[in-house]
Structure formats: structure tokens, C-alpha cells
């Protein structure tokens, strides 16, 4: 069981690094860094499969119950959410690659960076809660998702208005519209993981941020 826990933390750390690198690449326009994030995503996907297989084997051979069972079920769910978060690091990086040579998008890019920063902070907080079995920390992290949702709404409006006024940049603006949606989804995945942490520690399904 400790191995599973360690593997989840390792996968979480890989996702955190991917998101940090993707954010840096996006804000500093570092295409090479972005391409590295995209290439490394395969390792995150493989970690998910490894964790799922291990959990399934333990369930089949040892029929765990109670806390042990909850740890395995939540490990499978958390690994799945982490894999999706890794995909969002890829999306952020792909946008960086596609926007190269479009300096006119820089002001909008700068507006999105703070949203990505909040997302990465939430991921760090979630990993601390995961490592420390900290239910209170998990609740606090999930509360930040509201900020991400509000920011998404405001940026959405800004981008739509920009797109209307600048139809020549429609493709690039659409890219950014998708990007803020992915960042908003990143917050949702972190919230789900926080819910799984609560289930693992308390045995109670709790919906955070209704």
C-alpha cells in the first residue's frame, strides 16, 4: 500500500513539473521547453497504467476492505485525474508552440498567465494534502477552484470581445479560448482529487464546491 501511495506522489510530482514547465514556456515563449513537456507526457500516461494495474492486482489477490480498499479505489481515480492534468500541461504547451511568431497575442497571453499560476498553485497544495493525508488542506485547495472559475468567465468575455474586434486573429484567439477552458478543467481535476483525498481519509463521499 505504501508503494501505491509513493507511486501516486511520484506521478503527481511529474504532473506538477509538467505544468510548471508548460507555464514557464507559455509565459516566456520558450518553444523548446514546451516541446519537451509534450514529449514527456508519455511517461505520465505510463505511470497511470502502472498504478491501475498494481491496484487491480492487489484487489484481485488480497480482497482488501475498509481503509485499504479506499486507498486503492482513490489511487485509481487520482491517477486518472492526474493523467488528464498532464494532458492539460500538453495543451498549454501546444498553444505555446502554435502561438510562436504571433507577438500581437502577447497582451492576451499575459492576461492568461495569472490564471495558470493559480492552477499550478492548486496542484502544489493538492500534492501536499495528498502526501500529508491532510483533509483540511484538501478542502482549502478545493475552495480556490472558485477563483479559477470566475477568472475563466472574465477571460472568456475578454477573448470573445477581442475576437469580434480582431477577426484576423480568430484562430489564435480560439486557441486561447480553448486554453482557458483547459485551465478551468485543471481546477476541476484538482477539486476531484481533493474529494478523493477526503474519501480516502474519512470514508465519506463529500462534494466540494457545489
Amino acid at each position, binding site marked *: 500500500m505504501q508503494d501505491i501511495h509513493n507511486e501516486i506522489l511520484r506521478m503527481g510530482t511529474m504532473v506538477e513539473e509538467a505544468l510548471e514547465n508548460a507555464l514557464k514556456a507559455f509565459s516566456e515563449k520558450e518553444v523548446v521547453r514546451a516541446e519537451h513537456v509534450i514529449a514527456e507526457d508519455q511517461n505520465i500516461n505510463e505511470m497511470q497504467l502502472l498504478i491501475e494495474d498494481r491496484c487491480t492486482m492487489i484487489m484481485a489477490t488480497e*480482497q*482488501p*476492505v*475498509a*481503509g*485499504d*480498499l*479506499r486507498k486503492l479505489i482513490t489511487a485509481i481515480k487520482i491517477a486518472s485525474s492526474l493523467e488528464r492534468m498532464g494532458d492539460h500541461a500538453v495543451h498549454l504547451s501546444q498553444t505555446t508552440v502554435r502561438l510562436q511568431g504571433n507577438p500581437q497575442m502577447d497582451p492576451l497571453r499575459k492576461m492568461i498567465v495569472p490564471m495558470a499560476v493559480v492552477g499550478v498553485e492548486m496542484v502544489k497544495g493538492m500534492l501536499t494534502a495528498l502526501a500529508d493525508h491532510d483533509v483540511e488542506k484538501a478542502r482549502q485547495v478545493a475552495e480556490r477552484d472558485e477563483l479559477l472559475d470566475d477568472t475563466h468567465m472574465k477571460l472568456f468575455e475578454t477573448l470573445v470581445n477581442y475576437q469580434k474586434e480582431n477577426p484576423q486573429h480568430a484562430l489564435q484567439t480560439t486557441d486561447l479560448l480553448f486554453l482557458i477552458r483547459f485551465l478551468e478543467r485543471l481546477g476541476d481535476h484538482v477539486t476531484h482529487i481533493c474529494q478523493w483525498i477526503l474519501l480516502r481519509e*474519512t*470514508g*465519506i463521499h463529500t462534494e466540494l464546491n457545489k
Partner: protein
Amino acid sequence: MEQNNMGQKSAALKIKVENLDLYYGDFQALKAVDMDIEENKVTALIGPSGCGKSTFIRTLNRMNDLIDGVKISGNITYDGTDIYGGYDVIELRKKIGMVFQKPNPFPMSVYDNVAYGPKTHGIKSKARLDEIVEESLRGAALWDEIKDRLHKPALGISGGQQQRLCIARVLAVEPDVVLMDEPTSALDPISTSRIEDLIDELKKDYTIVIVTHNMQQAGRISDSTSFFFEGAVIETGSTEDIFFNPKNKQTEDYISGRFG
């Protein structure tokens, strides 16, 4: 069954145990046990060896009366009536039957095994006995396998069949409650599975209390589970709660195999 204001059914109480203490001489085997056993449900009793669960189950039909030096205090009521004050013990053991760990068919034919109880209780008519034997063997999911061998020796059938025969024997005297003390621990997995399926069917008509060492079995077949340790009930709850989120650490450690 009763219904509350929301139209939901709550199970009636079949047996109520309050503050039960039991001593074998100076040794206290049961300590202040409280338990509500619901009608038409399967209640599983789990716990390490020597924790008192078999002693407890035997108190429910006063089998402990047969042991020298036993002292019991507390209340046990069956359908609201005190089992020590209000019941003839023979009648009680007819209504609350028992199946043991090791199948114990009598050294007679299959038919005579099942007919023995009803005959002892005064049924003489062959037609009625035939009916009871068939109904009981059907109720124990054994009829189809054994109907052509009713007059063969019961000791010649397989272990799994013998245990189902013992269940049929209990059913033949029309019980209300069936107590089972590790009924499948001496059986192979397929026989175990058949008896578990049978228990699931039986609970529609009877109340079942089962002692088991097999956590997966308790999880599979019971509605409610009580964890015994050193003569006391540590935790009781719905089987789902006990196996997903037990309140007590000792319960969690036991069901997770960390001791016992």
C-alpha cells in the same frame, strides 16, 4: 415490517440481546453484549478465535444450558418474549435452529434425517412427512440432487450435500431463525458458494445469524456485521459500513488481516 412516515420499510426486531454476560466457571466469555437481530436479515458475527462469537450464538437458543458451570445474566428476547422466562426450551430450539461447522448427519438415510425432527414433534402421517421432506430438501437446494437417493445413507453423500442436508433438517421443523456456526469452513469453494446462495434465498423466509472467519463471506452475504473481541462487541453496523468505513480502529485492523 413497519413503515415510517416516508413509506420506507424498517426491519422488525426478531431477537434483542441486552447487557448479556456469560461465565464458564470464573472465566467471563461474554461481556455486556447488546445486539439487535433484525427479521429476514443475515447478521454476521466476526472476530478472532476465542472471542466469544460461538458462545454468543449458542445463547440465542439456550444451547449453553447443556454446558456445566455456565452462568448467564442479561436479557434475551425473541419476538419480544424472554427466552429464559417465556419459552419451553424444546420449542425454542425448534424455532431457533442451528447448523454447525462440521456437517453432522445422523447415521440413517437422507429421508430419515429430515423426517427425524417432525416425527419427534409428533407428525405421524407418511404423506405429511413425505411433503415435509421434499419441501425441506427443496428449501435447502438439495432436492434435485438427492430425490432419487432419499433412502440411501446420509453419510455416503458429499460434504457439501451433507451440510445442505443439515440445513434441510433444521428447515423441517419450521424454524423462524437459523443460527449457523461457520457453516462452510469445512467445505470446498463450490459447496461454499452454493450454501451462500442458499443463505441469500433463505433470508426471505427466515432470520439468519452466521458466525464466520471468512471476511469475504461476511461481506458477500450479510446485511449487518458485529465484530467481537475478547467477549465484547466492539462494533456493529451495516456490512457496507463495516467493510468500507469502520468506526473503530480495532475493527479495521481485524478485517484487514492485521491481527486475529
